[in-house]
């Protein structure tokens, strides 16, 4: 067994080391199916957009989980489910051990203080008719956490924290630049000292030079206040920079999840590999021309009728018969690394036989094989177990 695998995951620069304590947020088999109405006389539900379909992950207190994927993969829906802007179709959202997936609006009220959201568009997410002071102070007033006469002081404190002039509390959003507006959004999210921030594309609408300012601000806040982040973005480099753990989503499912190093240096799902290879790299200037990359063909299929078995198979160069028949489980292949693929492996090292067949009780074509032994201890729930499948040796190892 190679030593690096048994080592602790290198913690991110700004994040506290992960403990063994219960996670702050645990999402288990989360599903969000939006009904699709037919166009007939009676508008029957003719199908469902399977926006999120069986997603599981954990976020520990003060930690960051990055959620990446292309548009329509379900990452934003996941964020909205966790802030309970939607009620999920199925699965559990455990926040500090309690399932909040189906809590009533009234009982969610205290939770709204703990989980806050930062939005992508700093232009539309702030009410143009309210002053910045009102916008930031509103949560304080609603939740009655601070006496009325103290609200202004707290607002100014928050403005200072996010790097804005505290004297500008009586200005309106349009008087600020895009970056400043995003800071206002962040200040509003911080008002109630949340434990978890869901940041949905917090910088993608900003100019490059401003993006870095906001990212650094978020890092500082996380370090200072110990806030956990669910960081949703399509920019792989920014997610890598910000999050020590990252999940890659494709068509409503997590296809690969792991610590930063495992995922970016040893991506084992063909989709992750394709995604990473497609990112234009400024360092290529030294070499000139385009980088080698894995070309994906076609578009992302419709989430209304996703492909059978592995959802990525229609665009995958590794796909075989089994991929259409059996959905690959999210299999742990390292201490903090899981992948959902029948043929996982780093580029060029994919196995020729499906490694999952035996585990799933099927033969290598995906046909049920009663003789195959089913290995049940390799769970697919949220979090990581102490045992995993070593890809090179095809053995179960424990750390």
């Amino acid at each position, binding site marked *: 067994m190679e030593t690096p695998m048994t080592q602790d995951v290198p913690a991110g620069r700004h994040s506290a080391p992960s403990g063994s304590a219960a996670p702050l947020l645990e999402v288990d088999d989360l599903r969000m199916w939006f009904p699709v109405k037919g*166009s*007939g*006389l009676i*508008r029957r539900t003719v199908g469902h957009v399977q926006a999120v379909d069986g997603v599981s992950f954990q976020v520990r207190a003060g930690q960051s989980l990055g959620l990446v994927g292309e548009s329509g993969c379900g990452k934003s829906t996941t964020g909205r489910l966790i802030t309970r802007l939607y009620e999920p179709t199925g699965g559990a959202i455990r926040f500090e051990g309690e399932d909040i997936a189906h809590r009533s609006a009234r009982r969610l009220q205290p939770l709204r203080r703990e989980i806050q959201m930062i939005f992508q568009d700093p232009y539309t997410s702030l009410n143009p008719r309210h002053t910045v002071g009102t916008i930031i102070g509103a949560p304080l007033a609603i939740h009655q956490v601070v006496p009325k006469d103290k609200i202004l002081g707290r607002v100014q404190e928050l403005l200072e924290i996010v790097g804005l002039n505290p004297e500008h509390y009586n200005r309106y959003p349009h008087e600020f630049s895009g970056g400043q507006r995003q800071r206002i959004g962040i200040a509003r999210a911080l008002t109630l000292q949340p434990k978890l921030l869901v940041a949905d594309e917090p910088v993608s609408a900003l100019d490059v030079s401003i993006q870095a300012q906001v990212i650094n601000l978020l890092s500082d806040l996380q370090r200072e206040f110990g806030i956990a982040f669910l960081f949703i973005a399509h920019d792989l480099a920014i997610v890598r920079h910000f999050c020590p753990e990252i999940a890659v989503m494709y068509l409503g499912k997590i296809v690969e999840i792991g610590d930063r190093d495992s995922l970016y240096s040893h991506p084992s799902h063909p989709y992750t590999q394709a995604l990473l290879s497609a990112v234009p790299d400024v360092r290529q200037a030294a070499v000139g021309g385009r980088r080698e990359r894995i070309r994906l063909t076609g578009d992302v299929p419709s989430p209304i009728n996703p492909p059978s078995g592995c959802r990525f198979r229609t665009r995958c160069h590794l796909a075989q018969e089994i991929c259409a028949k059996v959905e690959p489980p999210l299999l742990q292949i390292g201490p903090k690394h899981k992948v959902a693929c029948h043929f996982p492996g780093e580029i060029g090292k994919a196995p020729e036989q499906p490694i999952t067949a035996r585990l799933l009780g099927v033969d290598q074509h995906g046909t049920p094989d009663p003789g195959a032994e089913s290995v049940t201890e390799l769970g697919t729930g949220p979090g990581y177990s102490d045992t995993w499948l070593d890809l090179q040796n095809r053995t179960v190892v424990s750390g």
Partner: protein
Amino acid sequence: MGAYIVRRILVGAALLVTMSLVTFLLFFATPVDYARLACGKTCQPAQIEEVRKSLGYDDPVLVQWGKFMKGVAVGREFPDDPALRAAAPQLVTECPAPCLGYSTQTNSLVGTTIKERLPVSLSLALVAFILWIVVGVAFGVIAALRKGTLIDRGIVGIALFFFAFPTFFVGLFLYTYFAIKWQVFPIPRYTPIADGGVWPWLQNLLLPGATLALFYMAGYVRITRAFVLESMGEDYVRTARAKGLPKGVILRKHTMRAALTPLVTMAGLDLASLAGGAIITEAVFNYQGLGLLAGTAARNGDLSMSVGIVVTLAAFVIAANIIVDVLYAVIDPRVRVG
């Protein structure tokens, strides 16, 4: 699309039923005793009760509404009095389905009266509509193309001027000067096409039409101008320029089509609501359209007529909504439904 239209029509019909009920409820919610009004000034209480009974106002509201709905569905007789029918059948009025009721104040079937009045309002609405659409849109486009110039400001200013003046003033002004003093136009009097052909019909409609059009025109000038300006700033217009298309083609094909689409909605609904009559214009020019009829019916407490008009107008507006939506789908492929 077919299913969509059918569904919309069904929803519209349900809406009509609801509206008729609401009208009934509103009517009976007013503190006025219409039987007392109808009875006249020397009425004794017993007579009032008799009148109430003969008007059918003695039943509970819902029963009256139920009778109305039944009339719409299968027709009715007025008065619904078998004894009278046996004694003096000439006094009983048949009202075949869809029966909108019988007005004891105009002594006529509501449906018949509405049918008589509708062409007046429709003619007026149509002429006004054509005037304001043609003139309003044309000036709106000119203003947009000459944005910021004197021409632009002049057009918008004049439009606002007419908008600001009350309709009855503009109407009286046009009537007094163009018809009475200068006699440019004949004294307006509704002349059905059947009576004198298209020209007298139109000629008589020009003044009231213009009165109405002047009011609506202002809105259309401004909206057209805004839409055209907005459309001129759209990325696809820039794309069209980048392709090297000539200015005229860009204006016609790319700018105008997008700019005028939202007008379809406005225009359709405005036309539909005008079908219900423009009370003030009709009053000034003595055009006995639905608007005046509705006003009189409301004033006189003529429930049957009021309900009939409300339902007719609602039908127009609902129909216009459906047509506009369908038109929209034809114009804008994005809103096409499967």
